């Protein structure tokens, strides 16, 4: 977000920050924060190319196709460039798409079609809805209320967002939708605590990354949290012969996800991005009094705010009732189409609340997403990702090993494997059947390994390309790729520790896992 901050007085500054209509999701290159980052940018370009060449010219492994090897090389190059940022991330995406073509990894149509994927449409339409919240000043009102109600200190403001995401996760399965609808609130609250694109601070990093965690990880609380969860449930039933009920999943998944959220709420602000004492209160002279004054000045809900609330309510209603659509309408209105209906009403002449030109659609973000998805799909379609997983498991002999050791390895591989792919669905389709087959071969009940592994599906928090919300939140320029990686890896490690601890206790009591040190018969 580029806040055009004129800083005459603190009150003017608050006014400027709250004037979100002047803000756009910035496409400009993020300034390097340190000399180390400058060197990373300088060496990132040749580094990426050398990694590309190394992977491309490595002796081919058995069963690895030429296209898979080339796809892995292209993706590795993009990964290095996305992390080190010698170019803006969307330029790297464009380079990646070109490389996929010239290395004959993917067909031109397959590469271009990515821009028409459901996820890209959902992003685009959700940004129109987000622009509506900003234009009608509903986002401003909600943010001020949120800060007044919960944001007396930075710590409680962060907790309020975690609880908000916890509330939304079971209601709205589309993570991108959840992200975009809460993004305006995040931006205003970050600004109130002094974190802007020009000078992001520890609060802003904590806020964005905790929300990323909330959006992704809390999806694992329920089996309906994402479609990939349901695929895993289906595979466990058809291949493993064990039906996983809704409450089975909730009892196993929710405690781990919620505990991780709370642990990271503390770890983030106390250890990873320590919030200095001076930043723990709103950065506004006059403190909450000024915010209260601004909130009161807004008066009662305006006509356009009421319209926005109604439109958003309709979309939200459609998002949360998708399981009933078929019986109500004879057709399922999927998340992008619910957003599309909302966008039609928002943009409708006379009755709508927004002109097309006022919609802040960050095309650079969509291009970044498209490139990331094209690369991820190429890894999946060519079989490179599956080959890597097969090789990894083939290299580990788990026969005669106690259950706890096997469990720890499988959960760890599942948790960190999200760094190699951009699709939860594809990762599920590759990993869960392998884990079920392996469980059977080792003599363990498939559900004892497959269900805990399935609980890791939604933990896609390691990189800005790991998921849809990651892309959106990264565009706020409040944190770097390395900071995202650090936070994500700590989150995943906390998750692995909790899952391993659960296997020894909670999951065993629930009857999901055998004794931790049991040895196969």
């Amino acid at each position, binding site marked *: 977000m580029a806040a055009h901050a004129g800083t005459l007085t603190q009150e003017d500054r608050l006014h400027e920050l709250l004037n979100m209509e002047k803000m756009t999701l910035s496409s400009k290159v993020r300034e390097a924060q340190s000399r180390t980052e400058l060197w990373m940018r*300088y060496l990132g370009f040749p580094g990426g190319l050398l990694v590309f060449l190394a992977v491309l010219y490595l002796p081919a492994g058995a069963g690895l196709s*030429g296209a898979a090897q080339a796809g892995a090389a292209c993706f590795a190059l993009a990964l290095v460039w996305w992390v080190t940022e010698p170019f803006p991330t969307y330029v790297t995406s464009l380079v990646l798409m070109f490389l996929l073509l010239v290395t004959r990894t993917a067909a031109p149509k397959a590469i271009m079609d990515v821009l028409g994927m459901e996820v890209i449409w959902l992003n685009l339409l959700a940004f129109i809805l987000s622009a509506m919240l900003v234009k009608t000043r509903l986002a401003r009102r909600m943010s001020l209320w949120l800060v007044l109600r919960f944001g007396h200190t930075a710590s409680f403001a962060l907790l309020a967002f975690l609880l908000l995401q916890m509330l939304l996760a079971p209601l709205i399965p589309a993570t991108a939708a959840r992200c975009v609808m809460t993004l305006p609130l995040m931006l205003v609250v970050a600004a109130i605590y002094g974190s802007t694109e020009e000078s992001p601070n520890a609060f802003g990093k904590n806020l964005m990354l905790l929300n990323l965690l909330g959006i992704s990880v809390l999806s694992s609380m329920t089996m309906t949290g994402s479609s990939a969860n349901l695929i895993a449930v*289906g595979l466990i039933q058809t291949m493993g012969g064990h039906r996983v009920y809704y409450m089975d999943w909730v009892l196993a998944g929710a405690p781990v996800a919620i505990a991780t959220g709370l642990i990271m709420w503390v770890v983030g602000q106390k250890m990873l991005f320590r919030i200095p004492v001076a930043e723990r209160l709103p950065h506004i002279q006059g403190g909450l009094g000024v915010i209260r004054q601004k909130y009161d000045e807004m008066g009662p809900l305006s006509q356009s705010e009421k319209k926005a609330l109604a439109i958003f309510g309709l979309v939200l209603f459609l998002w949360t009732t998708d399981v009933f659509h078929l019986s109500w309408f004879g057709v399922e209105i999927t998340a992008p189409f619910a957003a599309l209906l909302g966008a039609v009403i928002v943009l409708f002449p006379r009755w709508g609340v927004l002109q097309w030109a006022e919609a802040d659609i960050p095309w650079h973000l969509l291009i970044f997403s498209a490139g990331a998805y094209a690369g991820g799909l190429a890894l999946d379609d060519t079989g490179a990702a599956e080959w890597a997983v097969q090789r990894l498991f083939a290299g580990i002999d788990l026969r005669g090993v106690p259950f706890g050791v096997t469990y720890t390895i499988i959960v760890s591989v599942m948790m960190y494997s999200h760094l190699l792919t951009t699709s939860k669905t594809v990762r599920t389709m590759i990993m869960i059947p392998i884990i079920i087959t392996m469980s059977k071969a080792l003599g363990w009940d498939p559900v004892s390994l497959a269900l805990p592994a399935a609980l890791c599906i939604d933990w896609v928090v390691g990189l800005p390309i790991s998921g849809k919300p990651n892309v959106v939140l990264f565009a706020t320029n409040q944190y770097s790729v390395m900071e995202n990686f650090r936070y994500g890896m700590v989150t995943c490690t906390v998750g692995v520790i909790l899952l391993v601890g659960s296997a020894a206790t909670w999951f065993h009591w629930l009857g999901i896992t055998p004794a931790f040190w049991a040895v196969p018969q």
Partner: protein
Amino acid sequence: MRTLTALLILLACAPAATAADIVITRYEVTLATAADGTGAATVVITLDDAAPGVVTIPLGFAGVKVVTIADGPAGVAASARPVNGQSELRLTLPDGVPSSTRVTVQFAAAGVFQRTEPAPGERRTLPEGVRIFRHAMVNTQPLPIGRYRFTVVFPAALRAHAVRETLPKLRKAEAGPRARLADIGGRPGAWLDVPTLSQGDAASLHIELVPEGRSPVWLIAGLVLCVLYLVYFRDLVSRRAA
């Protein structure tokens, strides 16, 4: 007279009814290809409820020559004939054939790689040196095939660039993969695995092959770009710029 006619019809139908009872429980094909486009195929067919008579089995190869029985009960005979651009294997099972029988047939196949050179006036769609391997088998017979597994071994000088298509597609509840590239006896190859093929079902594998080894163009271009960038963008980290 009517009774006699009915009896004759029944007698005529009797062998066919017996053949219809035969179940092909496994059908495994291994094809070792050579760079010149020829291949040596070994087909292992496992039959249940086998009975004397002729069993027709679709092969899926266009040109089949020199069909021999490598293993099977005494008296089994095999021949192949072209039908609609494909080939059919005719197995003649002798009297006294065991109910559960395994027959191994070998034959030579020609033209296993498709032509990729464009015809006069056509545009080239694939780079030079690319070979296309496509094997398709349609179960044209009423006998269902229990499990069909096709394995192909490529010539040493070629490498699979991509598996372009496999049929049938995986069903929703089916765990994959349908086909996979693999190391087969120390040589590059691939397999296709289909759990069941009813009458009219097709199984196919389409793989693009390229010569082993990569062109050095990428290496040269990459290294040149590295050097150029390090020289022309060195101001990014120069003290003066900082």
